[in-house]
Every structure is written in structure tokens, then in C-alpha cells.
């Protein structure tokens, strides 16, 4: 690269036509790095363990909630802060009441059988729970079966209550800068209640 081009912001390097394969490699490299951190955290949080995950579903061990709720609180505050500063785009999937509910329950049934969900299944395999291999193979098979039905589902189930991108702030007619602190407070209170009344382990 010529010397005079170095004054450009480095983000523009990504858009250089010759840089396309490099961009893809850096995308995959970042994905791998973030995945390593994610997997490390999932395992350290105990949620790669069969007993912890089934314990959550049996309402006996609330570790899963103790991981998920702080993640949602910190991520929500952080991402809405970054978003209002114009630094990140949101990635919100469409709200479809029918598909979200049916798919959600179907996922739940599978979750109960497998105990590992897709992310924690990968983490479970990493920590040496070999039964997770069957879960991961099942996830691939189930994805293909879904693809077989996807045309039909797109015509039938997806239109049921299809509201497009819909967020709680719009439903409640509140600005995110009002709702986010309120939600964060509510979720922290839920967490405190769980800690005090249900599962007081640190």
C-alpha cells in the first residue's frame, strides 16, 4: 500500500476491492476469537454441565438464570448506549407471534430432551461431554428437516401475527432511554429475588 493511503481510517481497508478474501478471513477470525471467549465463559459459568441445565428446567438450580439475566442487563445497557452514540446497528429478528410461540415450545421440548441448547451443546462437547455430539448432529439434521418444511411454514405459520421488527419500547410507547433503565432495574430485582428466596448460592 502506498504511503499516502495510510492516512485513511483503517476501517476503509476492509472495503478495498483486493481486500475481500482478507476481509472474510478477518471476519472468520473474529468469529473464532469471540467464540473462544463465549465458550470459555459458558463453561466457567457452569452452563455446559448437564446437571446445571437440567437443574434449571427442573427449577432446582437457577445458575442458567444467574448467567442469562446479567448478560441481558449488561448487554442491553451497553448496546443501547452504543446504538444511541451511533456506533452499532441493532440486529432484531421479526416478531411473529405464531412462529415464535410454536417454534419456542418445540425448541423447549428438544431442550428438555437434550439438556444442552445449541451454544451450551458446543460448550458441553468442549468440556468432554460426548453425548453432546449427538445433540450437535441432531441440530444439523433438524435444520435440514426444517429447510424441507420451510416453504410450507413460510406460507402458513409465519404470517400468523407477523408484526415485523417489534420492540418492547414501541409496544409500551416508551423511549429506549427510559425503558432500558427500567428493564435493567426490573431484571436486577428479579435476580436479587432469585438469589434471596430461591437459590442463594453465590
Amino acid at each position: 500500500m502506498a504511503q499516502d493511503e495510510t492516512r485513511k481510517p483503517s476501517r476503509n481497508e476492509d472495503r478495498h476491492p483486493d481486500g475481500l478474501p482478507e476481509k472474510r478471513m478477518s471476519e472468520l477470525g473474529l468469529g473464532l476469537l469471540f467464540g473462544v471467549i463465549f465458550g470459555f465463559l459458558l463453561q466457567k459459568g457452569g452452563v455446559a454441565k448437564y446437571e446445571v441445565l437440567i437443574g434449571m428446567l427442573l427449577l432446582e438450580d437457577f445458575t442458567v438464570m444467574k448467567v442469562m439475566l446479567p448478560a441481558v442487563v449488561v448487554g442491553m445497557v451497553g448496546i443501547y448506549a452504543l446504538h444511541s452514540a451511533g456506533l452499532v446497528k441493532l440486529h432484531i429478528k421479526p416478531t411473529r407471534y405464531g412462529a415464535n410461540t410454536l417454534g419456542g415450545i418445540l425448541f423447549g421440548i428438544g431442550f428438555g430432551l437434550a439438556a444442552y441448547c445449541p451454544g451450551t451443546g458446543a460448550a458441553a462437547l468442549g468440556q468432554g461431554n460426548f453425548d453432546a455430539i449427538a445433540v450437535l448432529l441432531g441440530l444439523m439434521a433438524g435444520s435440514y428437516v426444517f429447510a424441507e418444511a420451510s416453504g410450507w411454514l413460510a406460507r402458513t405459520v409465519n404470517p400468523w401475527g407477523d408484526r415485523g421488527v417489534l420492540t418492547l419500547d414501541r409496544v409500551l410507547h416508551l423511549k429506549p432511554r427510559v425503558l432500558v433503565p427500567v428493564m435493567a432495574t426490573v431484571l436486577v430485582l428479579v435476580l436479587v429475588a432469585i438469589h434471596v428466596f430461591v437459590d442463594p448460592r453465590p
Partner: protein
Amino acid sequence: MSRRNMLQTAGLIVATPMLAFAQTEAVNPGATGPAWSPYLVGALIGVLSMFTFYFSDKALGASTAFASVAGLIGRLIAPRHTDSLHYYADKKASKIDWQVALVIGVIIGAFLAAWSGGEITGRWLPPMWTERFGESVWLRLAVAFLGGGLMAFGARMAGGCTSGHGISGAMQLSVGSWIALLGFFAGGTATAMLLFYA
């Protein structure tokens, strides 16, 4: 600060406490609970989400990666049929992408965490399963495979899994994500209770 420098700094910020914790962690192979405070882990996952949004313009999620790999395999075995399917009509739905790399990373990261904490299990049957359903590995594998299949179908229908909806969607205040999350735990609790108490 250049992007690379920021990334290195960010990496160090995350890696340093991790390594510090890893060093002091007692070896505890029989542990059934979390090695670190789950609250701390959750908060760090929240921070990680901010990083993936900022540096990769992506939300954390795991289930789509399995659909991508399934599509790649489908395209190898039955290319024309796979291309004819609604879900795979979009070529982006079947390639090695950021999320596939993420899931591979999760396996590696969990291995490093378990290894550093002396928690590598190396077994086919969880003791809690054996206690209830016996020593048959094939029974566990069959149930696990079926569970994985249902999860994938449900996740693609709902638009995400425990990570994509439960963490990433919920934190963005998506209504559909909160509905799906309720569905995950309703279906999961009912099924687990039937399996273990019925």
C-alpha cells in the same frame, strides 16, 4: 486508535482477568456447579455482546451455524434439491460464516476453560442421566439426537435459540425474542419434569 489496536486492547481487557482466574482456580473434576460466579460470567457475556456488535456487526447466536453446515452438506449430497428449498434458496444460509467460526470457537473455549479448571469430563453419560435412565449409551444418544433435531426445527421456526433470542434478542428488547424465550423454558420445564418426575 486503529481498529487492530482497539481489538488487541479489547482482547487483553477480556483475557487478563480470565487468565488470572484460570490460574487460581482449584482443581475440581467432580464439580457440578459453576466454577466462577455465574453473575460475573453473565456480565462478561453482556460485554462480549457489545464487542460482537461493535467489531463484527453481529449478535451472538449459535443455532444458525448448524443450519449453515447442514446446508453445506446438503449441497454436497443433493445440490439441486437443497437449492430448491425455501430456506436454502438464499445462498447465505449455507456457508462457513462468522457464526460457524463462533461455534467452533465455543468448543475450543469451553475446552480451555474446563482444562484450566480441571473439569474435563470425558464421558458419554452424565451421572444424573445414568441414575434415572441406566447405563445405555445408545438410549442417551438417541434422546440427545432427537432433542437436537427438535431444537433446530424450533429454533429456525422461532428465528433463534437460547443465545440468539434468549440473550441477544432479549437484550435488544425484541418482543418476539421474549415470547420465544418463554416458550423455550415452558417447553423445556414441562419436558424435563416429565422425564425426571413422571
